[in-house]
C-alpha cells in the first residue's frame, strides 16, 4: 500500500508506539487520580510525562495547562464554547474545518455572533481583513493554522499579534500542523491551541489536546469526576482537572507519549523539510499531467503536506478508486469536512482528491502515485 492519507490520520506509527499502547493495556492497570495504589501512581506519572513532552514541543512553560481531549474536534469545541457567552462575537476564517464552523453556527442560537474573514482563492487570509471584523464585543479569534483541503498556511503570527494587542484570545486549530510545522505558543501569541494526537504527532486515534494559557478564562464544557476535590460540588479551578472530567484514554496517551518523544528526537523542522520535499515533488509532477488542476498555494510556496487536485471531468471518488485499484494508493476524495474552505477555493461543487504524505513516505511512493494519476487522466482523455 502507498499511504497518502496522513491528513486524515498518520500511518505508519513510529517504532514503539504500538508496544506502548499494548504495555499500557497489559501493565498500567490503574486509573490516575482515582486510587492510591502504586500502579495508578505510575499511570499518573506516564500521563504527566506526556504532558511535559507536549509542552516542550509547543513551547508551553506550564505543562498543567495542557488538557487531554479525544481529538481536535473535542478540543475546539471545548475552547470555542468555553470562551464565548451570549452577547459575544467571534471571528474565524473562510478556510475553517467544520469543527469550527459548526460549533460557531450552533452558538448563534445562544446569542453569539460570528464573522468570517474571507480568504483569497489560494486560501490565504489577510490579517487586515481579520482586524476589520473586530468589534468591541469580540471575545475570540479562531484560525486554522494549515488547511486540511489546500495545505495553505495562514499568517498566524501576524493575526496572533493583532489579537494579543487587542486583548482577544486567539485559538489556533493545529489539526494539520502539529508535528509537521513548528509551533511555539509564546512567540506566536497563541492563547488556545487545539491539536490532534493521531496526525502529525503520530500517536493513536482517540488522542488530542488543548493548551489553555493563563490569560484565558475558559468555562468547562462538562463537569464530573476529576479525582480531585471530591466533596466540592463545583468543578475544580486547577488545571488540567478543570477541563478533564472523566477517565483519560491512558493507552492512547501512552502511545502518544512515545510518538511525541519520536517527534522531539527527529525534530519538527527535520520532519517539515522532508514533508516539504515530498509535497513539492508531488506538486511539480501533478502540474505536468494534462487535465489535472491543483488547488492552494503555488509551487515553491510554503504549505502543509496536503495536496488537493481534480482530474477534469472525473468524479474525485472515481479518481480515488482508480488510484487504489491501479497502485494500491490510499487517499481521500470528497469535501474533507470543510465546506467553507471548498467554497473559498472554488471546489464546492466537486470536492477534491487529497494526497497527504507523512514523515515515513518514500520518494518512490510519490513517483508511483504520480504515474497512477497520469495513467488515470490519460485513460479518460483517450476515451
Amino acid at each position, binding site marked *: 500500500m502507498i499511504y497518502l492519507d496522513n491528513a486524515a490520520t498518520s500511518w505508519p506509527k513510529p517504532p514503539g508506539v504500538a508496544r506502548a499502547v499494548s504495555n499500557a493495556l497489559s501493565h498500567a492497570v490503574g486509573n490516575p*487520580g482515582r486510587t492510591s495504589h502504586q500502579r495508578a501512581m505510575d499511570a499518573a506519572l506516564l500521563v504527566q510525562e506526556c504532558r511535559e513532552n507536549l509542552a516542550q514541543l509547543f513551547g508551553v512553560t506550564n505543562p498543567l495547562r495542557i488538557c487531554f481531549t479525544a481529538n481536535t474536534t473535542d478540543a475546539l469545541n471545548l475552547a470555542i464554547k468555553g470562551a464565548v457567552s451570549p452577547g459575544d462575537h467571534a471571528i474565524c476564517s473562510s478556510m475553517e474545518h467544520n469543527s469550527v464552523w459548526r460549533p460557531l453556527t450552533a452558538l448563534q442560537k445562544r446569542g453569539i455572533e460570528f464573522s468570517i474573514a474571507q480568504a483569497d482563492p489560494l486560501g490565504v487570509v489577510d490579517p487586515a481583513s481579520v482586524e476589520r471584523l473586530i468589534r468591541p464585543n469580540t471575545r475570540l479569534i479562531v484560525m486554522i493554522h494549515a488547511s486540511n483541503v489546500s495545505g495553505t498556511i495562514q499568517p498566524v503570527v501576524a493575526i496572533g499579534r493583532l489579537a494579543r494587542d487587542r486583548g482577544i484570545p486567539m485559538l489556533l486549530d493545529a489539526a494539520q500542523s502539529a508535528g509537521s510545522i513548528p509551533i511555539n505558543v509564546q512567540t506566536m501569541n497563541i492563547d488556545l491551541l487545539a491539536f490532534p494526537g493521531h496526525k502529525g504527532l503520530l500517536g493513536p486515534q482517540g488522542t488530542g489536546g488543548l493548551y489553555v494559557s493563563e490569560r484565558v478564562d475558559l468555562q468547562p464544557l462538562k463537569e464530573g469526576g476529576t479525582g*480531585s476535590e*471530591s466533596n466540592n460540588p463545583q468543578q475544580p479551578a486547577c488545571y488540567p482537572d478543570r477541563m478533564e472530567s472523566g477517565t483519560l484514554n491512558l493507552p492512547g496517551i501512552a502511545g502518544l507519549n512515545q510518538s511525541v518523544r519520536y517527534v522531539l528526537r527527529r525534530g519538527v523542522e527535520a520532519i517539515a523539510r522532508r514533508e516539504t520535499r515530498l509535497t513539492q515533488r508531488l506538486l511539480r509532477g501533478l502540474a505536468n499531467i494534462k487535465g489535472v488542476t491543483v488547488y492552494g498555494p503555488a509551487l515553491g510556496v510554503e504549505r502543509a503536506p496536503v495536496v488537493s487536485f481534480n482530474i477534469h471531468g472525473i468524479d474525485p471518488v472515481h479518481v480515488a478508486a482508480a488510484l487504489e485499484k491501479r497502485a494500491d494508493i490510499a487517499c481521500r476524495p470528497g469535501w474533507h469536512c470543510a465546506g467553507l474552505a471548498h467554497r473559498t477555493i472554488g471546489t464546492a461543487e466537486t470536492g477534491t482528491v487529497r494526497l497527504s504524505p507523512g514523515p515515513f513516505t518514500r520518494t518512490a511512493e510519490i513517483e508511483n502515485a504520480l504515474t497512477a494519476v497520469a495513467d488515470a487522466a490519460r485513460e479518460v482523455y483517450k476515451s
Partner: protein
Amino acid sequence: MASCLVVFASLNQVALLKRSLYRMGVFVEMQRTPHCLSTTGCGFALRCERHELPLLQMKCKELSIEPGGTFEETRQADGPHYVSFNASELGR
C-alpha cells in the same frame, strides 16, 4: 528523621512536582492525602524529608502550584500524627 507531607488539590500537580524534583535528584513519594488532612476530599500529597521541604516549596512557587497545607508526620502507636507547619517555618 522527620517526614513531611505536603498536600495538594490534584494528582496532576503532584505528578508534575515529583517529576520536576526527580530531575534535580530529589526523590519524593506520591500518596493519597489522609482523610484527616483533606479539606475537599480526594487529594494527593508528596512525602519528603524535612530538609527537602524548601526545595519542594521553591518548585511550587516556580510552577505556580499552591499547596493545601504542609504537615510534619510522626509515627505513634495509634498511627501517624500530623502537625501543621507555619509557612514561616519552612526552610528553617
